[in-house]
C-alpha cells in the first residue's frame, strides 16, 4: 500500500485558536475532536472554518461507541457526516472501544473483550458506519486498565482482525501501546511488530501520568523518552506515517507543543529518507484498503 503522508500535525485546541489564526504557524495539519464541532453554530465553528482555509485536517471522534451493544446512533452519525461534508477531512477516526450502553453514556473510552464474538460485532458495525459516511475510517487502539477473563487473543491480533474484516485503517497510538504494555505486562515492541503495517494510517503521540504502578493516559504531560523510543521503533517498522501530538489537559502555549512536534520530525528524519517523508497529503480516503 502507498500510504498518504500528511506530515506532522497537532490537535487543534480552543486555547490556541487565536494564535493559529493570527500567526499561521508552520504545522502540516491539524486534528480536530469531532464532537467539539457537532453543534449548531457559533464561535467554535467559525474558528474552525477560518483555520480550515489554511490547514489540512483530520477528524477524531470520541463518541461513536463502535463497540457498544446499543444500536448505532444514527443521529450522531448524521451529524458526523454533516461535519465531514463541511470540513472535508483527509480521514476520520474513532476509538476501538465502547462508551454507551443502555443509552447511558460514560463519556469514557471503555475496553472490550478480545474475542471472536466481539470482532464479528464490531467489524459489522464499522462497515455500516463506512457506508453512512461514504468513506473508510480509522480505528484507534486504547489505553486500558482492565482486561477481561473472556479475552481469547492479544490486543494487536484483535485490532488487526477487525481492520481486516471491516476493511478499515488503524490509528496507532504509540503512547497507548506504552501505557497498556505497562498496565498489562507485555512488550510494547511486540505489539508494534504484531500490527499489520498495511492498515496503519496515522500515529498519535501523547503524555501520561503514573498512579502507583499503573500508568494513566492523561494527555497532560510532554511525550516521555520511552514513548519517543517506541515511536522511533514504530517508524522503523512502518515507514512514514502521519504523526500528531495530542494534548488535552494542562495545555501549554502553542510554541511549546510546536517544539515538541519538532522532536517527532527530528526522529523521523533520523529513521527515514527524504523520499519517504515527502508529503502526499492530497489523498482523501474514499477507496478500498
Amino acid at each position, binding site marked *: 500500500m502507498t500510504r498518504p503522508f500528511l506530515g506532522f500535525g497537532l490537535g487543534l485546541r480552543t486555547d490556541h485558536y487565536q494564535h493559529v489564526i493570527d500567526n499561521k504557524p508552520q504545522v502540516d495539519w491539524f486534528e480536530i475532536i469531532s*464532537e467539539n464541532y*457537532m*453543534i*449548531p*453554530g*457559533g*464561535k*467554535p*465553528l*467559525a474558528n474552525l472554518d477560518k483555520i480550515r482555509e489554511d490547514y489540512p485536517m483530520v477528524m477524531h471522534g470520541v*463518541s461513536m*461507541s463502535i*463497540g*457498544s*451493544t446499543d444500536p448505532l*446512533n444514527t443521529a*450522531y452519525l448524521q451529524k458526523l457526516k454533516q461535519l465531514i461534508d463541511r470540513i472535508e477531512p483527509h480521514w476520520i477516526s474513532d476509538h476501538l472501544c*465502547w462508551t*454507551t*450502553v*443502555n*443509552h*447511558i*453514556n*460514560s*463519556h*469514557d473510552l*471503555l475496553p*472490550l*473483550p478480545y474475542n471472536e*464474538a*466481539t470482532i464479528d*460485532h464490531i467489524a459489522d458495525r464499522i462497515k455500516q458506519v463506512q457506508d453512512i459516511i461514504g468513506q473508510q475510517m480509522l480505528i484507534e487502539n486504547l489505553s486500558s*486498565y*482492565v*482486561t*477481561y*477473563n*473472556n479475552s481469547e487473543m492479544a490486543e494487536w491480533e484483535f485490532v488487526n482482525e477487525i481492520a481486516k474484516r471491516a476493511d478499515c485503517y488503524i490509528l496507532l497510538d504509540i503512547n497507548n501501546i506504552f501505557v497498556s504494555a505497562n*498496565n*498489562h*505486562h507485555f512488550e510494547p515492541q511486540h505489539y508494534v511488530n504484531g500490527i499489520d503495517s498495511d492498515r496503519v494510517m496515522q500515529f498519535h503521540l501523547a503524555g501520561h501520568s503514573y*498512579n*502507583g*504502578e*499503573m500508568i*494513566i493516559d492523561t494527555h497532560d504531560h510532554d511525550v516521555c523518552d520511552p514513548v519517543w523510543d517506541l515511536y522511533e521503533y514504530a517508524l522503523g517498522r512502518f515507514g512514514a506515517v502521519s504523526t500528531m501530538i495530542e494534548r488535552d489537559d494542562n495545555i501549554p502555549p502553542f510554541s511549546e507543543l510546536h517544539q515538541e512536534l519538532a522532536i517527532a520530525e527530528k526522529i523521523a528524519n533520523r529513521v527515514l529518507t527524504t523520499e519517504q517523508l515527502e508529503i502526499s497529503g492530497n489523498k482523501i480516503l474514499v477507496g478500498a484498503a
Partner: protein
Amino acid sequence: MPTLQDLQTHFMDYLLDESSVIIDDIESTPMLSAKGRLDIYATAYKLRLKEAITTDYDKLASYLGDDQFDLLMERYIEKYPSHTTNLRYFSINLPELVRDEAPFNQLAELFELACIERAFADSFDAKDLQFATLDDLAALPEKAWGSLQFIFQKSVQILWLQYNSFPVWKALAEENEPPKIEQTASMAWILWRRSDLVSHYRVLSTAEIAILSLAMKGETFAVICEKLLDFFSEEQTPMKAISFLQSWVAEEMLVGFKY
C-alpha cells in the same frame, strides 16, 4: 460466559454505583486487583462529568463554594446519567435540579444564576443564521405590514429574574466580590449572540417585553401595535412600534420576516 451486552451493562453499573458483578469478569494481577482497576474508571467517570459541569457553571461554582458545588454535582450525576453523545449538553438540566431540591432551592438566586449560565452556553453555539438588516426592513412592500411576522435568531433567550442575579453573575465573571443578593421587581432580560459571535444582554422595559413575547410567539405587527396601546397613546404607538422593530433589527436579533 457473559455476553458482550452483559459485560457492558455490568461495567456501567459499576461506574454508576460502584457495585456490580463485573468484578468477576475482570482479571486481577499481582500489581492491582480487579476492583482497583475498575476504580480507575469509576473515579475518571465522576471527574470527567464534574469537569464538564464546572466548565458550564463556573460562576455558580464560585458563588456556592467548593463543598456545596461538589454536593450539587454529586446529586446531578446520580440523578441525571448522561444520555448525550456530547459532553457539552450533559449539564443542561442543572438549573431544574437547583430549583427543585434542597438545600439548593432555599436560595432562589441559585436557580437564576444557573439559568443565566445555561442561557450563555446555549447562546454561544446556537445555530448561525443570516441577520435581517435595516435595508431588508425598508424593502418590505406596503402590503406586508398587515400580516407581518418576525423570525428571531436561535440564540435569543428571555430570562425573568426576581433578584439582582445578573449583576451578581457579572461580578463573578469579572472575578470581583459579588453584590449582596437582593430581591427586585420582576424584570425580563434578553440574551442573544450578535455577528461578533459574542453574547450580549440587556434588561427589557415593560412595554418591550410585552410585545417581544408576542412577536416571538409569531403574532403579527398589527397585534403588537395593539398591545402597545396599553403603554402609549394612539399618537405615540406607531412611532414606538417602528422604533422597537428597528432596534431589534439593528441589534441583530432578527433573521427575517414573514407575511
